[in-house]
């Protein structure tokens, strides 16, 4: 997978990395079990402190999207279903995004089209039970 990291952006690098990994997994650019560069390798590549990369990796590990094996390194995990807390947080975020778009004049139909278009980027995944 290709990451594009904007060093001049206002968005922190760990956040850019986190988001790109999530989207990459959902799009299928990163398969479950696929190895990611080590924290040090990524830090060397961007020319930043290893702490920044660790921050992104650790938050993704907490969410169950990455897993670290001491010998092999960091790999993409098969994501577990939402916990009830995560489910509530996701609905809240979605509600906020939709509300903001509606307030800025987007019609419900336009929103549905947007969502469909975005969803089309992602391949079908097996429903988690």
């Amino acid at each position: 997978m290709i990451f594009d990291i904007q060093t001049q952006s206002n968005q922190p690098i760990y956040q850019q990395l986190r988001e790109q990994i999530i989207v990459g997994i959902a799009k299928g650019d990163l398969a479950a079990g696929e190895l990611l560069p080590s924290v040090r390798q990524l830090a060397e590549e961007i020319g930043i402190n290893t702490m920044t990369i660790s921050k992104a990796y650790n938050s993704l590990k907490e969410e169950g999207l990455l897993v670290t094996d001491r010998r092999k390194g960091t790999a993409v995990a098969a994501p577990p279903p939402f916990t009830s807390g995560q489910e509530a947080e996701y609905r809240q975020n979605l509600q906020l995004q939709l509300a903001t778009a509606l307030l800025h004049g987007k019609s419900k139909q336009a929103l549905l089209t947007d969502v469909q278009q975005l969803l089309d980027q992602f391949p079908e995944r097996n429903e988690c039970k």
Partner: protein
Amino acid sequence: MTYLFFIIALVLCGTTAFGLRLISKPHKNVLLENTLAPEHLDDPSVQSLITEFRKRILQIVGTFSVASLLFLFNLSDSIILTLFWLYMAALLGTAYLVQVHYIGKMRQLILANGWELPIDPIRIDTKLVQAKNKRMLPWYSLVPAGILLMISLYQAWHLPDLSTGYLMGGVSLAIFALFIYLWVIISRLPVRGISGDSAIDQHINDLTKRYWSLLIAVTCTITLLLLTVPLASMSATGALSTILLLLFVVLVVFLIVFTFFLLLDLRKKQDQLLEPAAQPRYYGEDAYWRYGFYINPNDARLFVPDRVGMNIGINLGKRSGQIVAGITAVFLVVLMVGTIIPMYRLDFAPDAITGEVQGQEVTFDAPMTGKTTVSLADIETVELIEALPSPRVRTMGVGTASYQIGKFTVAGEPARMFVDINSTPILKVTTKDGPTVFYTNKKAAETTDLYEELVQKISSAK
């Protein structure tokens, strides 16, 4: 000696011209430290600036080449050495100022034409990053160098003179450690492809890692070999010592030629690989390169490859980088002053080289080396000779056309020299266990006086 300085000066001129010419040829779309879009590299205004810059290089190097004739005059060592340091500072200083001037002009040209490049995001191919060192030579390419290190440590340990042994051993270890560190730096170099195409980026990365690891393995081995040769030649005599000296010169020449050719070849191949890239990426490095120095406090790396493609530079934006650069600068100044001042003392102080009998001891002293004290009871023979025996190998000290001072190996035996070649006779003192001492005062009469005093004291003691 005079020829040596003349040749070194000419080589310096040649290297300066070569170095300056190199920055006037685009590498990875960088020309005179500024990044240009590929289509602007051949613009007539850019080309005319480059032609003007190259003309200046020729003028500077031409002038300094003529000035180097100065070293052919028969001047005293201290004056020659002072002139040499001044010459070097003037040559490198002028070359640097011209470079700064034309880098500025190129920047102005870019701004005037609105050619500034937008900064692209850093493109990271996760697969490529993980396999970035697969074409690096394996670690055991450094084993020959490791074996040579062991040999030179063994040689150093068995030197008759322990302090020289420690120094030699320390230098060998430091050189090996430095190369290992360089190996680590190379292994950590980012892929950070600028072609925007993973296949091209991979080729460039693989080639870079291959060449640099080969360079480190070969130069580390040869450098350590260079350290063992003089140690071996200390005990060698006759034809063998000539062969060893020849081997030393051949190795030095090979080391320089090999390094240049390998890095130039790498540079050329990197550019050939980059050529098909339609839209090369630009990561905004121009802002962090200031006249050959890299100053980027936001970059965590201490060492970065330079933009000419021939070196690894230090990041002066980091505190550790500033400390390393500061120590290096102080070391160079100390080296310069430390070599000039004792030379002045040797040339102009009448009592620079002394030999004095005090009580039951005789003490010899000279600039650039420590005192040597010999107990009169330990002296075996004292004689006056007209010429120094050969072969003479210097282990530590000064060896010029006029002076031989410090620790030497003379005809296979350890010796301490306190000799002004232009003053004869030479006093030779052999001792029971210690090194042989060769001494001349700058005034020949004083050498003879010391000889007579020693002969008298020794015979009266018997």
